């Protein structure tokens, strides 16, 4: 009896030994990365210098602008696109950021976000169009997008550091990869959801494929495309904070310092700065998703604003 038990036990042991194998996926990934650093060095240098040029100049530019001008421009946009309440919020928010002594960090972050967003849209939007036009491309790209979105954001930082070292460039690249999927997805979705009869109407009246894209499909997909752009900006903003771990700089620095040195106040200030920036960017980009003609012009809004102010004063 005992011997039978022992026999089955050892059989089970052997079976499970045979089933459990070590798959060297991590090693494989390392090998690939090593191979790429060795053989595509020049490519990475080229990418790095291009990104460094754009991101560097943008951050420089925003830092160069006097805060008063930024106040006026952003509040003006807010008044034009959204309304006087939001313009008021923009003024107060920016004043808080200035008052927390986080102005240079905010402008760094703004520059990085805009650089990363431009790159993500430049790659993502055409890719989305290709996906919409071709089912093969769509079925090939979709799993890659899933991969890009579900992989924890921190994991991007590792190869970025290996390829490009630390600093602004790998931070921007990691941000581009992380923030691109919604632009691609929503462009694809938007074009595919243009009503069939509108596409048929375009074709029936003699559109060639370029006219069909630019005169029918893109304009009708615009709300969806703008939602994608908005999402890309939001993701870029959240990633830029994480990217400060590899020295990207910006508003992530005080947050990181707050975590590392347990300085609650500093961390909170950094976080608040990010939130204010996020709300401003979100509302402004969302407002551009609505057709211009349905909104009142800047003049009307100014009149409304001062009209209200007058009423308040007189009452």
């Amino acid at each position: 009896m005992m011997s039978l038990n022992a026999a089955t036990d050892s059989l089970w042991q052997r079976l499970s030994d045979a089933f459990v194998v070590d798959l060297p996926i991590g090693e494989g990934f390392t090998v690939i990365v090593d191979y790429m650093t060795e053989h595509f060095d020049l490519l990475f240098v080229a990418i790095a210098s291009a990104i460094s040029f754009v991101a560097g100049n943008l951050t420089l530019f925003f830092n160069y602008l006097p805060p008063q001008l930024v106040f006026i421009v952003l509040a003006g946009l807010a008044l034009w696109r959204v309304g006087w309440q939001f313009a008021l919020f923009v003024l107060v928010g920016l004043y808080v950021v200035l008052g927390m002594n986080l102005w240079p960090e905010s402008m760094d972050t703004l520059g990085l976000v805009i650089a990363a967003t431009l790159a993500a849209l430049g790659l993502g939007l055409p890719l989305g169009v290709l996906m919409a036009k071709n089912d093969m491309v769509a079925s090939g790209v979709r799993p890659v997008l899933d991969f890009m979105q579900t992989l924890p954001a921190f994991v991007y930082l590792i190869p970025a550091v290996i390829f490009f070292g630390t600093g602004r460039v790998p931070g921007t690249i990691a941000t581009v990869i992380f923030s691109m999927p919604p632009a691609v997805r929503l462009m694809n979705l938007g074009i595919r959801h243009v009503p069939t009869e509108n596409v048929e109407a375009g074709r029936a009246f003699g559109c060639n494929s370029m006219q069909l894209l630019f005169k029918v499909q893109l304009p009708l997909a615009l709300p969806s495309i703008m939602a994608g752009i908005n999402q890309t900006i939001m993701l870029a903003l959240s990633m830029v904070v994480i990217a400060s771990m590899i020295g990207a700089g910006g508003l992530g620095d005080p947050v990181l310092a707050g975590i590392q040195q347990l300085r609650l106040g500093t961390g909170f200030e950094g976080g608040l700065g990010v939130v204010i920036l996020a709300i401003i960017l979100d509302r402004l980009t969302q407002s551009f998703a609505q057709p211009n003609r349905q909104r009142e012009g800047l003049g009307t809004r100014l009149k409304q604003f001062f009209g209200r102010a007058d009423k308040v004063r007189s009452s």
Partner: protein
Amino acid sequence: MSTKLSVEHVYKIFGAHPKAALERIKRGESKDEIFAATGMTVGVSDASFEVEQGEIFVVMGLSGSGKSTLVRMLNRLIDSSAGAVRIDGQDITQMSRKQLIELRRREISMVFQSFALMPHQSVLENTAFGLAMGGVSRSERHEKALAALDAVGLKANADSYPDELSGGMKQRVGLARALTVDPGILLMDEAFSALDPLIRTEMQDELLRLQSQQARTVVFITHDLDEAMRVGDRIAIMQGGAVVQVGTPEEIVRDPANEYVRSFFRGVDVSHVFTAADVARRHHVTVIERPGMSVRAALERLREHDDESAVVHDRHRKYLGVVSLNSLNHCIDGLGRREEGEIETAFVHEVKSVAADTPLTDLMTHVAESPYPVPVVEADGRYVGTISRAALLHTLNRTEKGAA
């Protein structure tokens, strides 16, 4: 009349291997058998018909009968699997992409069920859409678009946007957009089906009015029999992808090709379809051809034929009037012994002639109240025949039976 558009043995197979399905059709397999065996759908099967220059040709069928597929093969929004579609003799299925785009810009345009206006463009820009694609200059296309908008009564709304318009107005824009390119052929795919009944009738009238100003070749798709009867010069009826009957509305009502076609008219009031000329009979009453004939001779003639009344027309069959036994007798009583009497003096004034194109519905009271059979007269005054109460009842009864 010349043939503008001819569809010759056109097939459409939806599926991976249309050739295989076509082989099966040639072997005589049915649509259902092919679907069961291959999973491919026969959308349109061996459709053939010709559309004359300037007529409204209606394609009617239930949903799924292939009519929308068929109309899309006429401008190649859908490519046919086999067969030829000729516009002015040129086979469009053989055209290159470039020729096709040129054809769509100049020769054939379309009106859609859901209007399919571009929401980001003003009414004027929407109307000028086809010309803009063809590279026509801004001023010229706006001028033509305004003219088309004027024709459908929307000139005042040129600067509005589609979401500011009602359904009927949107479809007027859709119609104006199609007319702006001044097409040889106008395709209308269930163009009025999404509109409520009152607006639908209004749009049908609008189409007929535009058609009376300039007769275009129109292919009109509908599932609505009343609409088909109203606008159609000729109707093609589709069933399961095949064209089962082509003819004028009257021909189809009078002689439906099969039970499916007949079923369309179940519960439909055919008195709209038939006109006075359809029911009029020539041999029912005595006809007097000599206007100079005397009253006495006419009375003699009636007695001879044992008839109550007679129609009088001249040698060119121009209708003059109706005389009856009573009116002739009355007339003779007033005459002297020697007088022959003019027949005109014996005309019965209660009997009014009706025009040949009067629909039966408008005829019924008239025939019922008239003491004698009612004469039917063409627009140029020529006598067609008469309608007696018995004949009218007989017609209504017969069509009722046909529909039941």
